[in-house]
């Protein structure tokens, strides 16, 4: 293990709860839901008719008309969020060599909308009418590639694809890249644009989505609640700028929090169902604490994956108990998916961002929609309203279909305390 330390120095976001970091944070803290009835597709086609959609985003205006036309919505999100994060970091080519800046951006699927549009053209008019832009727009690594072009970031660059853990793996790999000396700055996170016929339809077929709150969208994503019935599909991007601590301090950067440790594991159990007792998740949490030099008693806050599915929430609760032991009774746990829904490949980055702001601000965002905890869900999930707390250490969990588990350990930046 290197003696380098990694801190967050820039944040950018496009999400159902806001297209700036401050707006998203305020809405997460105030429990203001970004979930509404699906408006970009005919909701009547689906059993689940609610989603967390990015609003007021005109890619031609935020980017430029040509970038808007030549990039899938998921890449547009990533570019817009990365520009915000880069500006927020205050970095420039004067303060960092472009060859020392890497980009790792995860996405569960990539350009699904492009795939569907072009597949329809191919079926209707034959494969010779497939756009030359089909492949570059669809591939799930293009967000990382385009962001690098946009920011002139010439260091390590790739994508991570682990379903709902994609962006947490991206951040974990970015931390590793800085530890290994492959880069000093990493632009990292995730992006997803899954409000499409095939994505919504596919998750509906899995019976993974909430179908019981179609008339009350803002209450649909209700992690740990007894009336939860599935997750709420959502779109967006969240990008973090990670930086080696000494580099950040030397230039007087505004440091948001430290990423102190990484844990990852696989259930090796089932393609979609979590391992019994959340044992894979628990091992990732334990590994993250060890990596960060934390003990269970140090952990003040767990930002749970908390999807609002029956299986996740009960198994993750068990995992937290297994990883933290008796301290689980004291730790604050919340799922911000209660406001922004499940942004799939972008959700880990979104939640790590909110966790870092929780540490910085001493304020834990709530599980806003939780009214009556479900059976087996008996931790302090910070129901309803945010809680002021002098938290020092946090874990943020992300779990993906395929049994992929990531837990990221964050520590309050001491310059703040």
């Amino acid at each position: 293990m290197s003696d380098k330390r990694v801190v967050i120095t820039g944040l950018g976001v496009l999400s159902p709860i806001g297209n700036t970091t401050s707006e998203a944070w305020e809405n997460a803290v105030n429990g203001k839901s970004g979930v509404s009835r699906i408006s970009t597709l005919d909701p009547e086609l689906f059993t689940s008719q609610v989603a967390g959609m990015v609003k007021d985003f005109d890619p031609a205006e935020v980017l430029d008309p040509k970038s808007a036309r030549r990039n899938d919505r998921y890449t547009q999100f990533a570019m817009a969020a990365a520009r915000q994060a880069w500006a927020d970091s205050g970095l420039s080519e004067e303060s960092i060599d472009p060859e020392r800046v890497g980009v790792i951006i995860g996405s569960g699927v990539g350009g699904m909308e492009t795939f569907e549009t072009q597949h329809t053209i191919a079926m209707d008019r034959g494969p010779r009418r497939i756009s030359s832009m089909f492949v570059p727009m669809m591939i799930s690594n293009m967000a990382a590639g385009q962001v690098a072009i946009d920011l002139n970031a010439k260091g390590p660059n790739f994508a991570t694809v682990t379903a709902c853990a994609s962006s947490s793996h991206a951040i974990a790999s970015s931390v590793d890249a800085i530890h290994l000396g492959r880069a000093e700055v990493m632009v990292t996170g995730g992006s997803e644009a899954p409000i499409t016929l095939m994505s919504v339809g596919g998750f509906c077929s899995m019976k993974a989505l909430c179908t019981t709150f179609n008339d009350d969208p803002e209450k649909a994503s209700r992690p740990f609640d007894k009336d939860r019935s599935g997750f709420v599909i959502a779109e967006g991007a969240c990008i973090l700028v990670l930086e080696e601590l000494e580099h950040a301090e030397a230039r007087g950067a505004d440091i948001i929090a430290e990423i102190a440790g990484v844990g990852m594991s696989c259930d090796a159990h089932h393609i979609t169902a979590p391992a019994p007792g959340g044992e894979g998740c628990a091992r990732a949490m334990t590994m993250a604490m060890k990596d960060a030099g934390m003990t269970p008693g140090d952990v003040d806050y767990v930002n749970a994956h908390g999807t609002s599915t029956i299986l996740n929430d009960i198994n993750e609760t068990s995992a937290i108990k297994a990883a933290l032991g008796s301290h689980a009774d004291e730790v604050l746990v919340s799922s911000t998916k209660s406001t922004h829904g499940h942004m799939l490949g972008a959700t880990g980055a979104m939640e790590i961002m909110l966790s870092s702001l929780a540490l910085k601000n001493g304020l834990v965002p709530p599980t806003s929609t939780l009214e009556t905890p479900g059976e087996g869900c008996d931790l302090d999930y910070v129901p309803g309203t945010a809680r002021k707390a002098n938290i020092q250490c946090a874990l943020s969990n992300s779990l993906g279909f395929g049994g992929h588990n990531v837990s990221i350990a964050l520590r309050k930046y001491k310059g703040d305390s």
Partner: protein
Amino acid sequence: MSLENRIAEIIVSRLNVKPEEVTDSANLKDDLGADSLDMVDLMMDLEDTFNLKISDEEGNTLQTVGSVVAFLKTKGIEA
């Protein structure tokens, strides 16, 4: 609408350029910023609009706006 105007409209839409940039002598790649991928899709746009086939060899000869106009005229397309 004249043939020139119809072609200009397609080029403006495909390459995201301003109408006044689309002059007879403008080079599609050098002046209007088309890359090889844009060129493929531009040929498809022309094929769809004017209901004809453009071979790769023919497409490679279309470098300027004027050459596109002239090519379509040789195919008997006037407007």
